[in-house]
Structure formats: C-alpha cells, structure tokens
C-alpha cells in the first residue's frame, strides 16, 4: 500500500508495534543517534560529546525508564500518583543492599548486577502490591494525596534506616555497573571505568550510556506492547470510565494492582540505575520534588504515549542542564564587553546586582535549581492550559500540517 500509510488491510498490521515504515525508520535513526550522541558525532548537537553532558545523557535514559513506569500507571491506567519518588527510593535501596559492599555500619550483600538490577525492580513491585489495598480503593485526587503520604512516610524511613540508606546528608555509595558472574574480583565487562572498545577510547559514562540504551528500548517496547495486550486494554478501559469497565467484566482492583506493580518495577529499576550512575545519593533525594519532576515529564511530553514520555524526559532533564550552561554563558557575556552585555547583565545576577538567575545559591536572583523548579511549574501550567497533549500533541499537529501540505486548511 505505497503512499497510503494509514490503510491497514489486516488487524495484525493495524495493531503492529511500529505500523508504518516511517516509524520503523525513525526508531532506527533515533537509536543510532542516541549511540552517536555521547561521542559528539551528531551534526549540530556535537556539544553532547562534551564530558559535562555525558552524565546528563545517562540521566535522561534512566529518567526515561522511570517515566515509562509512571506512564503505565498514570497515562495508561489513569491513576494519578505522586509517589513515584518513593518507589524509586525503595528500588534504589533494594539494589544497594543486594549489590552494595557491606561495611561496619551499612548492609550490603555484594551480589552481581544480574541480581541487583532485577531485584531492585522486584522489591519495588512487591511494595507496590503491598500498598495497593489502600491505593486501589480510593480514586482520582484522593489517590494523589495517599501517594503524597507515601512520599513523606518513605522520606521518614529513608532518613532513619541508616544501616540501609547511610547517614542523612551523607548517603552511601551504589554498586558500580560491572558485569560479573558471581563475586569474583575482575568483572567480565567493566562499565564503570575508562577503557578501549574496538580501538576507540570510551569513558566510563559513555559505556554506561551504551549499556542503558538497550534497557530504554526494552522498556519502551514493553510499555508499547502492554497497550496491545488484554491487561493493557483493561487498564485503558479503567482509565476511560472505571465503572463502565467494571460492568463489562474488567476486574478493577486486580488490574489497578497490576498497574501499580509494573509501574513500581520500572521505578525501582530506574532508582537503582540512577544511584549507580551518579554514585552517591542522600537519603533526602527521593522527595516530593522528584515525583513532581516525573509528573512534569509526563505532562510536558504527553501522557499515555511512549514517544511523548521519551521526549518529555529528554526535555526535562536536558533543560535543567541547558539552563545552567546558558546562565554560565550569560555570566561570561555580562562580564565581557560585547554589545550584548547589557542584556546579559539584566538577566544574570552578579554579586549584589539584581538579576533573574544567579550562579550562586544565595543572594539576589533565583539559583539555577530554583529557576529550574520555576520552569517546571510554569511549563506544567502552560502545557495544561494550551496543549494538554504535550510535546506529542505539538508534533502531531506539525505532522498533520505537512501530511496534507500544500492543501492544509
């Protein structure tokens, strides 16, 4: 059916994972681009090869896994959860107990990576099932507040269980991404240190990015595939009209529990990976702010869609770093003598001069972190007001405009 991409002649092709050639090509191009990005080989985006961006790229990928999990719960099953940070924390600490090294004050079993990554997800999923008796009984905004309560309970636990989480304000070190068969000294693959692959120098973080890409692809395929299964259709029915779904024979509580379990599994894996790529995290890290960041990813990207979630995590995580880079650039401009330095001086606060953003945490002007928070808040509000489908909706409109061009009206 050349030239008629929307004409499907069988149910199988209609329900396909990637129904059109364009989508198949786009996925291949995206994966290749994601592999090339950390090496600075992308046209126009060469700056991504800089060392400062490697950790950001790795975080984009980990946040994508976590956001795909929230997408299953909120986008697919329609359950608003503010507790995603809690499940990430549970997974992260399950991972660190299974894979971390044991010291006088900290628990750790030192097990290999193929146990602690899935283990982190499974423990988080188990906790998800444990809280679901409360969570599935309440609906809508009540659920949002119950899960808000989970974040505060989790925060209390993480700050007090210092034999698991490390002391408050200090934290502990996560196991490195090293593939071992069991507890032997030299790993089969070492993703934590610099090395040479196929005659090319690769840094540890570059290796981790290469390792994370297949995981993200796997998570995205699993999410996309879930929407085509019986469970996935049941979840969408619950999202669209819970009582109608129930009357048609969808077991509401059971399917909500399944959604909680799957979503928590993704969150747990993402939490453990995040700890591992960053190295050390405080017990206070898994806070309401992190949950809100995931809500922002979902709403900015477009809830309910895999491609929107991926766009959202790229946008939210990378924008935080872009703001910082841009502020530094402005600060240099403001200090220099180029014609633009008056404009830059207005935006950046230097010393005690007034400005919108400041590189210092105190003094006049928002710090970069505060500015990013403000930006998330503003973007959440603006997207909900003007483009409820998020970046995915914008992309859809652009695509539809050009699809019928020059007869768009």
């Amino acid at each position, binding site marked *: 059916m050349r030239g008629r991409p929307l004409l499907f002649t069988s149910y199988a092709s209609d329900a396909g994972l990637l129904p059109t050639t364009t989508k198949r090509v786009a996925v291949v191009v995206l994966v290749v681009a994601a592999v090339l990005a950390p090496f600075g080989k992308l046209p126009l985006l060469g700056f991504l090869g800089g060392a400062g961006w490697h950790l950001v790229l790795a975080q984009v990928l980990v946040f994508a896994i976590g956001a795909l999990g929230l997408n299953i719960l909120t986008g697919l099953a329609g359950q608003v959860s503010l507790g995603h940070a809690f499940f990430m924390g549970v997974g992260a600490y399950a991972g660190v107990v299974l894979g971390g090294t044991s010291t006088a004050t900290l628990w750790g079993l030192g097990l290999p990576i193929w146990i602690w990554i899935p283990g982190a997800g499974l423990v988080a999923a188990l906790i998800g099932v444990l809280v679901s008796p409360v969570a599935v009984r309440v609906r809508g905004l009540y659920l949002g507040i119950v899960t808000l309560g989970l974040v505060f309970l989790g925060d209390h636990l993480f700050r007090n269980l210092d034999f698991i989480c490390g002391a408050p304000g200090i934290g502990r070190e996560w196991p490195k991404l090293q593939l071992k068969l069991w507890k032997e000294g030299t790993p089969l693959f070492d993703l934590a240190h610099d090395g040479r692959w196929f005659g090319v120098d690769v840094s540890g973080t570059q290796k981790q990015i290469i390792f994370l890409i297949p995981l993200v692809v796997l998570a995205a395929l699993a999410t996309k595939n879930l929407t085509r299964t019986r469970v996935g259709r049941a979840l969408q029915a619950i999202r669209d009209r819970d009582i109608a779904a129930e009357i048609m024979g969808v077991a509401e509580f059971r399917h909500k529990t399944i959604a909680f379990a799957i979503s928590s599994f993704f969150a747990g894996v993402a939490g453990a990976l995040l700890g591992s790529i960053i190295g050390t995290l405080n017990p206070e890290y898994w806070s309401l702010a992190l949950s809100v960041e995931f809500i922002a990813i979902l709403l900015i990207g477009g809830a309910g869609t895999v491609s929107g979630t991926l766009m959202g995590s790229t946008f939210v995580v990378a924008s935080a770093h872009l703001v910082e880079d841009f502020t530094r650039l402005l600060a240099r401009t403001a200090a220099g003598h180029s014609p633009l330095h008056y404009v830059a001086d207005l935006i950046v606060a230097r010393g005690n001069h007034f400005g919108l953003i400041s590189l210092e945490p105190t003094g006049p002007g*928002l710090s970069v972190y505060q500015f990013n928070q403000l930006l998330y808040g503003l973007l959440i509000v603006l997207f909900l007001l003007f483009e409820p489908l998020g970046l995915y909706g914008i992309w859809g409109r652009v695509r539809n405009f050009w699809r019928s061009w020059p007869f768009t009206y």
Partner: protein
Amino acid sequence: MTLAAQVVAGGGGLVKLLNTLWDGAALGALYALLALGFVLIFKATQVINFAHGAIASVGAFFLATFAVDKRIPGQWIGGPDWLAWSLSVVLALLAAVAVGLLIERLAIRPMIGQPLFAVAIITLGIDIMLRSVINDFLGTSNKSVGSPFGLDVFDIGGVRIPHTQVASTALAVICFVAVGRFFKTRTGIAMRATAFDQEAAMLQGVKVGRVFATAWGIAAALATLAGIFAAIFPRGSGNLEPGTAFFALRAFPAVILGGLDSTKGAIVGGFIIGIAEIVAAVYLQPFSDTLGNGFQTVVPYLVMLIGLLVRPYGLYGTPEVRRV
C-alpha cells in the same frame, strides 16, 4: 520539638495529659483552618488546591515584609504594637487575596469545563512556582513575622497555655463560624450550586466565574491566617521558613480524613490529626530509637491511611454517586 519538651518538663500524670491534649487541640485548630481553605475551594470548584500551602507561605511572607522589614503602617502610627501588627495583618490579607484572585483569573478560570485532574495538576505547578520564588526571597535566613503575643503563658493549675495558641484557636473558631454562616448566604448557596453542577448553576443565573473568584479569594485569606500562625508557633521559632509550606501539606491528611467536601469534616479531621501528632510526639518519645526522630511528622499520614482503609470518602465526605 520545643512544645514536647515543655510538656515533658511540665509534670506527670493528668497535668501532662491535659497539656498534651491542649497542645494537640491548638495544633488541630490550625490544621482545621488550613483544611477549611481546601474544603472551600473543593466545594466551589471540585478541585484539590495543591498550592494552598504555598499561598499560606506567601501570605506569611507579606506579613513579615509589612510588619517587620518595612514597618507598614507601624512607622506612621503610634499606639501599641498589637495595633500596628493587626493592621499589617490586614494588609497582608489583602495582598494574599490579590494573589489568589490573580491565580484564579490566569490559570483556573480558563480551565472551567476541563478535566478536574488537569486543574489539580495546574495548582501543583503553581505551588512549585510560588515555593521556588518564596524560597529565593527567604534564602538561607528565616524571616520573623513579628508576633505581638510573645512567649507569655496562662498557667491554670500546671496546665500551660501560651497566649499565641489562645489567639490562633480563637481566630480559627471565628473562621469556622464565619465560613459556616457564609454557606447560608446567597453567594454561599450559589457556590454550593456550582459545586453540584456547573452547567445547571449557570442556567440558573449563577456567575460561575465570580463564584470561583470568591472561593479563591476567601481561601487565600484563610491560608494566610493559617500561614501566619504556622510560622509563629508550631516550631516555637516565630519565623517563616521554607518548611512552612510543607507544614500546610500536613493538613492534607486532615482534609482527607474528614472528607473533602465537608466543613464539619475539616474541623473534626483537623483536631484528630493535631491531637494524634502531639500525643505521638509526647508519649512515643521513649521509643524514638525504634521509630526514628521526628516520627510525629508522619503520624498524620499514617492516621489518614488507616482512616481511608475504613472509610474511602473520609468521615463526613459524601460518597460519590457514579454513573456509567
């Protein structure tokens, strides 16, 4: 926690119990005042306002600016301190109401008829924005809101009752009565009609936009009053801190426990949560090794979770009638 320390020092047995219960009730009145703001907005717009805590902080920040930093109107008028302070409170209330109305007009009014979930998340976005701006103004230092009540206490047979708590509880009771009366007025009835069915209310000639604005304005004023007393007494520091906005988040359990759409529920829920928190702080002190430091701050959420297991719509909430 200074209150707990005072209570423990205050003696044993019955006096300790009475002290604890009074402290809990005073905290509960504050939670109930915050919960009342949530309920008001929920009753008018069917939306949980996540920005309530941030508005409370903003209001307290206005007071800190007016009463302490700029001394408006204190620098122009003589008279006792409490008079100047009360006038500053009125100014702070007006400023906070303006903020509430602005938020309503810019972000909430355009969403009339949109999914409620989207509106609730918008308030969450506003909460983040307000908090990041307020935290920047506060910086690392805390701001005093300049309480005129000082540290004086009434001592009734060993039961110590700080003047601040008397003032805040009296104020909370006045607000409960006022809001209760308000729902009987013409505007109040219009608000209840809007909550029941926006379209039907519009057809009856209710100006839904004006109802929304009224609800947000009153809720912002209630939030400010609660924010001021939240800054003054639960920590005993008399200061507005970044944590004050999170204090308001602990009123969520109160409103959920009582039922989102019930004024009575907000008051009962507030008192239950407040008393539970202080009782836990005082009587679970010996077990702090097992339970962890600051266990009382999560007690409200635990009470809420247990309450929801038993009654998913809270104590006095109306069970939602669901139609296919």
